[in-house]
């Protein structure tokens, strides 16, 4: 059973699992019907915030639950309170249902590296054991921490269930539609003046593969997942060839509000701190224990995403420089 299939990431994971011959039936659960084609996935319209989900699990004899239903954007969920409801209460209900269902043997949770927060006191790379240094007050970051807390509680109460938590870096790729991709698609990209965040990305194909791997194999534990390498925010924007608008930090929240009102991108305060300080996660365990090797590095994933956008204004300036250079070197 896969939750959150109305959105792109959930739908792709469900399709990928349905294509695997080793898996019998894949149930896709969500409140609204999916926009994307689900293929062999059987869609069940159910709300994970409602105890009905327990009946679905019992009636269908679900043995594996893949929870991709954590929402990152308040806009798509219909407001921040609704987003919190889906993320936190939804997860609680889902886990309560799983705890009652004796048939459930595996739980895979798609979490996010936002659980580590972002701030000036952060170490360069977070390993899975490290606690966040910055305190979460907002948005997805806070939700993800709470969701993981409930998942840990569930793992304690049902030690027979194999629980895998995947802390994924921001997904990126031609098909991903997230606050991050919409941000980079802005014609002029606003950044915080005087700071340059370090970013890691995970290509959408790698993300789907990782969830499939966690579902098919027994790999209990918490794992950071991210592409190799690191790019800085300024470097990413330069690669896009888009002009940057560097604004002082005190204007960040009003800029975010303006961008939100213009329906260009959806920004919560935790994403602003992320784009100020950045974050890096250590992926040693992803390789050793989880046995997963992303196909794309951070830079390659970003370049794949870039190819889906048009060239920006700055690309032509670079062309000019190249011409002058060529002339000099004959």
């Amino acid at each position, binding site marked *: 059973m896969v939750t959150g299939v109305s959105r792109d990431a959930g739908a792709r994971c469900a399709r990928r699992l349905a294509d695997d011959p080793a898996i019998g039936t894949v149930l896709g659960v969500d409140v609204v019907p999916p926009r994307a084609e689900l293929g062999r996935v059987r869609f069940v319209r159910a709300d994970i915030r409602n105890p009905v989900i327990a009946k679905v699990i019992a009636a269908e004899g679900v043995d594996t639950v893949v929870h991709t239903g954590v929402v990152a954007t308040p806009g798509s969920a219909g407001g921040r309170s609704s987003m919190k409801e889906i993320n936190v209460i939804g997860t609680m209900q889902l886990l309560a249902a799983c705890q009652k269902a004796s048939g459930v043997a595996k739980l895979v949770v798609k979490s996010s590296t936002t659980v580590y927060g972002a701030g*000036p*006191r*952060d*170490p*360069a*790379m977070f*390993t899975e054991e*490290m606690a966040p240094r910055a305190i979460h007050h907002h948005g997805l970051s806070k939700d993800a921490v709470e969701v993981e807390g409930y998942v840990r509680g569930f793992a304690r109460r049902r030690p027979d269930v194999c629980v895998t938590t995947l802390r994924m870096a921001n997904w990126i790729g031609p098909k991903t539609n997230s606050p991050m991709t919409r941000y980079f698609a802005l014609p002029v990209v606003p950044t915080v*003046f*005087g*700071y*340059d965040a*370090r970013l890691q990305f995970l290509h959408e194909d790698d993300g789907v593969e990782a969830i499939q791997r966690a579902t098919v194999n027994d790999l209990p534990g918490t794992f950071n997942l991210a592409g190799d*390498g*690191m*790019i*800085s925010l*300024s*470097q*990413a*924007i*330069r*690669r*896009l*060839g888009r002009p940057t608008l560097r604004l002082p*930090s005190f204007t960040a929240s009003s800029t975010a509000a303006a961008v939100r009102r213009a329906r260009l991108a959806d920004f919560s305060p935790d994403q602003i701190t992320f784009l100020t*300080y*950045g974050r*890096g996660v250590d992926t040693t365990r992803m390789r050793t224990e989880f046995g997963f090797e992303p196909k794309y590095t951070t*830079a390659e994933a970003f370049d794949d995403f870039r190819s889906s956008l048009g060239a920006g*204004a*700055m*690309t*032509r*300036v*670079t*062309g*000019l*420089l*190249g*011409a*002058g*250079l*060529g*002339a*000099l*070197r*004959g």
Partner: protein
Amino acid sequence: MADADVIPIGSGGRPGRGSGRRTTPSAAARALVGPGNRTKKNSRTKTSGEDLGGADPTVEPVGAVPDVDGPDLSGLDLGGLDFGRLERVVRELFGDDGERRVAEWLAFLRRRLSGDYELDEFGYDSDLTDQVLLPMLRPMVEKWFRVEVRGIENIPADGSALIVANHSGTMPIDGLVTQVVVADHTGRPLRTLAADLVFQTPFVGELSRKGGATLANNDDAERLLRQGNLVGVWPEGFKGLGKPFAERYKLQRFGRGGFVSAAMRTGVPIVPCSIVGAEEIYPLVGNIASLARLLGVPYIPITPFFPLLGPLGLIPLPSKWLIEFGEPIRTDEFPDGAADDPMLVFNVTDQVRETIQQTLYTLLMQRRSVFF
């Protein structure tokens, strides 16, 4: 900016750009021709002008090989532009070597604009550090402070080492100077560990990360050392930087010895480094404690010239510097779990501290005067 008129220079619109009298350029450099077929006059003249101002003929080139990997665009139609004049101007201004330098500089600018460079996981940008940050600091190190370096052979040529130094001078100039000195004498970048205040400050934090600094904590220190880096640490921190001028060259407490346990866990040698001269650059005679508390910084310095002379007071005094790297202290011979033995860690910390203190006294005895 990209929409510019095409103004052919001196050629009457004739395509082609040379007469075959090339002597210096390499074939690889031709590959640097970008896909530009429109340009404008002032962008080119501006480039030459900037380089004229920026390139100090006495400053050595950084020694970094320019990145000449680019798409092969030979046979590119440059839209009937003649760059012959530009070439001649550059040759006249900078000589034969200047042509290569301008080309390197343009290649660098192109890499920066297209984002075609790599960062490591700490955010260290070697391209920017080698091409911009270190060359900017080099005149200060060589001309202003006239740094004299001793014992550079104590820094291992390969493998990691932890360089531990005394901290002084109100502003962490000694960190920057040590970074330049190590990079120039060993050819290896020095990765520094900095306070969290640095990363909270706009620009300072950004440039520090790009210049190879990271937050001073055990996780980052051990990670850097495991990857075989030279790591620099100033364990006195703000206690050393912000001590009054009267207490110059008296070492403060060496933190909690975290740097020793990091070195022990990774088994890398500790190289004590004594810096003489940094104490005199901003003689700290007072501290506006109330304002410092208000702003959340450790101190607001009062020096004989600051804030009296305003921004002029920020110019460091040109003291003569001596930097001596001492014999490495090995940490790989301690038994396993030594890093968790606080008594041993304190002992080694004291040993490092005493070594630096003794070397400081020796260097001070040898110094003829503060400024010469």
